[in-house]
């Protein structure tokens, strides 16, 4: 499976609002903790190491063996 970088989320404006709203009442520290939990939850859902590695790279992360 390849990392899907084409539009894939129905109602993009609605999703973006939901994402921002989910952290509306949080301090930066709380939101950063939530981001970490979110990344872990989503990464587990994807599961595929190739896809995850490609995502790390697209996001600007350092990937040593890709």
């Amino acid at each position, binding site marked *: 499976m390849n990392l899907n970088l084409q539009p894939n989320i129905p109602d993009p404006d609605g999703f973006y609002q939901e994402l921002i709203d989910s952290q509306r009442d949080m301090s930066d520290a709380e939101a950063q*903790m939530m981001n*970490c939990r979110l990344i*872990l939850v989503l990464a587990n859902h994807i599961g595929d190491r190739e896809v995850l590695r490609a995502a790390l790279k697209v996001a600007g992360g350092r990937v040593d063996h890709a």
Partner: protein
Amino acid sequence: MLETYTYPKFAYVPSAEQAEGRVVRHPVVVIGAGPIGLTAALDFGRRGIATVVLDDNDTVSIGSRAVCYAKRPLEIWDRLGCAAPMVAKGVSWKVGKVFFENDLRYTFDLLPEADHQMPAMINLQQYYLEEYMIAECGKLANVDLRWKHKVISLRQEPDHVVLTVETPDGVFTMEADWVVACDGANSDTRKMVGAEFTGQFFQDRFLIADVVMKADFPTERWFWFDPPFHRGQSTLLHKQSDDVWRIDFQLGWEADPVEEKKPERVIPRLKAMLGEATEFELEWVSIYQFACRRIDDFRHGRVLFAGDAAHQVSPFGARGANTGVQDIDNLGWKLKLVMEGAAPEALIDTYDEERAFAADDNLRQSTRSTDFITPKSEMSRRFRNAVLELAADHPFARPLVNSGRLSTPTPYVASSLNTPDEDAFEGRMVPGTNCADAPVEVNGRADWLLHHLGDGFTVLTFGPAPAKTVTSGAIVAKVASIGEDLVDARGLVAERYDGRPGTTYLIRPDQHVVARWRVFDAGRIARAIARACAAPGAQS
């Protein structure tokens, strides 16, 4: 401080060679009588190599030090005749609990497979372990333990090593065909040969305390991340024998190692953890920092490095002593075959090939645990805490919790000594893997498979043995039939080895699978033995 243990004092015995001023060439000199040096003495001695062990001290390890011993080292010590007192005195455990802040977040069970002789893990103070091995060395006429012998310099010649040794009677010279350096993480021998010892240092300090108390904690490994009694750091609790408990406190890099060792600093930390009502006594305190690094080559000419002298890991996962014992398991038979001329010296080079491979695996595991336990940045601390928070409710996060991955052997899957499979097999016993134990019956009596492997090369064949032995050059491998010599009454050997009639395994003297086939073919077995001895031309 209280003492539950009386340290033995071993007599310094002046050697005849020093007294008479003779320079004697010894087959093997082992430097250091810690767990690895003593394992070397027992392994080499049992294989028939006369072995001198030099130690600059005259007692066993001070303090509990290495505490957790895993199944594979126990199997090795069983082969060497000293596992029974260790298992009897040690505390067997298999459950680990991980706490974060106030709460239990995750429980693991090592879930040892049933029907193995040795337990998954025991906790035992290092001084007991050494005491039992020293007693066992006393039974071997060809093992010479010499206390108060300090190596002060070393010179390599093409076919031997010259050692300058200091004793209470002064300085004298010894020679050795081979030197095995088991002198620990600060190995002087390593400096004497100019070896590189590189890796990653961790900027953190840990306080270790041995505490004597009658506590009703269960016999489990408890690990706390950021507990209320020790904010921002981690703590580990382990039970040892004699009501001695081992407690490790992470202190951080700024901690003053001299101040933090003082009982007036240690006792309040323990009271905060154990509660004011718990009565305890301090037995031993130490501060350590750690590194993950290894030597550039396990062989420097005629000097071979083993244990912490060759590789240093963080303590999470009990990978220090456990790995070192497996170094010796790998080295002993190779030295023996080379010394008696049955294998070329190239076989010794495969000691580095196989054990550096294992050391790198251990270093990787240990570094990963350390990165989880002591995050290097605020963001990695957030990820770590997120894993711990999620682990309580969501199974997916539990395998990500890393409070130390407990030591298991590293199979030599890529070893040049293996004969790659040509036939199809199921299961775990691929060439390079240490043999799984299983119950067998011998002459109607209950026994264990591993008791019948390890004395030279062994051919294990399922069904009638077409021959009693297989010869390859100077090597004669005995053939053991599963069904005739060893009765697989419960079918567990067949299950663990995917054995069918005709299935044949070649087992190395260190109880590792090195080749296997679906039929017994003496020619192929002989070629695989040659290859397992690094014989020239046997690689093709």
